[in-house]
């Protein structure tokens, strides 16, 4: 029981990777907007897509954690 909860907690650690990934993407996006303000729209679309894709890893971890808890 306790070990299962621990396993779920470890699965949710994937969120750290997504956080770092989105952070880097946002940093680069702000940098490029500052350099080329006229390309703002394109950059925003690419950033949103990149964030959604990076977020997916965190979501996978979350789904796995839920599956583990569901087995309890």
């Amino acid at each position: 029981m306790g070990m299962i909860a621990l396993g779920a907690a470890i699965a949710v650690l994937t969120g750290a990777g997504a956080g770092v990934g989105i952070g880097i993407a946002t940093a680069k996006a702000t940098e490029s907007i500052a350099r080329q303000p006229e390309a703002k729209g394109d950059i925003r679309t690419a950033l949103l897509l990149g964030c959604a894709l990076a977020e997916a890893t965190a979501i996978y971890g979350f789904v796995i954690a839920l599956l583990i808890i569901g087995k309890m």
Partner: protein
Amino acid sequence: MDNMMEELQSKTAFTIPILGGIPVADSCVVTWIIMGAIVLLSIIFTHRLKRVPTGKQCLLEGLIGWLDNFFTDILGPKGKKYLPFLETLIIYIAFANLIGLFGFVPPTKDINVTAALAGIAIIFVQAAFIIEKGPVKWLKSFLNPINILDLITRPLSLCMRLFGNVLGAFVVMELVKGLIPIGVPVIASAYFDIFDGLLQAYVFVFLTSLYMAEALEEEEH
């Protein structure tokens, strides 16, 4: 906690009493409601179309024009005949994700629905490949083992991404509602239901159209 785990299960709405009972899931009934709503909206919006658009027709033309441009940009002129499918997909998923606002359970919270959507999308992409390039080239494309792997990983990631996002939003919203029932859920709902729902619909269809574009593109020799 137990209450919450129960909420996460997809429930059966009713059972058709033939052939020993066919269970009809909640997500299926909500899908019927969405279908009804979309058909009704289509009738209302396409009623009395004029050559010079006014009012609601402007809104409709703006939306469909935006979708058309968006997909044509990705697929190129060859992909014109595949636009209606992709647009149907984005409209359905957007409705499915937003219906939580009206107190229904979003059908995309059921993993069977997202698995079906991902399956349809991948089969459609493969079918487009066969139509454009012929079955021989399609079989030849599997000489590259990465393509076989893609057949499994792409639908899996499409399915899990949509399902996980909707489920995650649902769980967080339930927790927020349990913690502070007044005020805060409205703000959280704006992000989790509206923004995230629309974003996930966009991402799902964007990825599908990227796969399509890959299937449609001409190889260079």
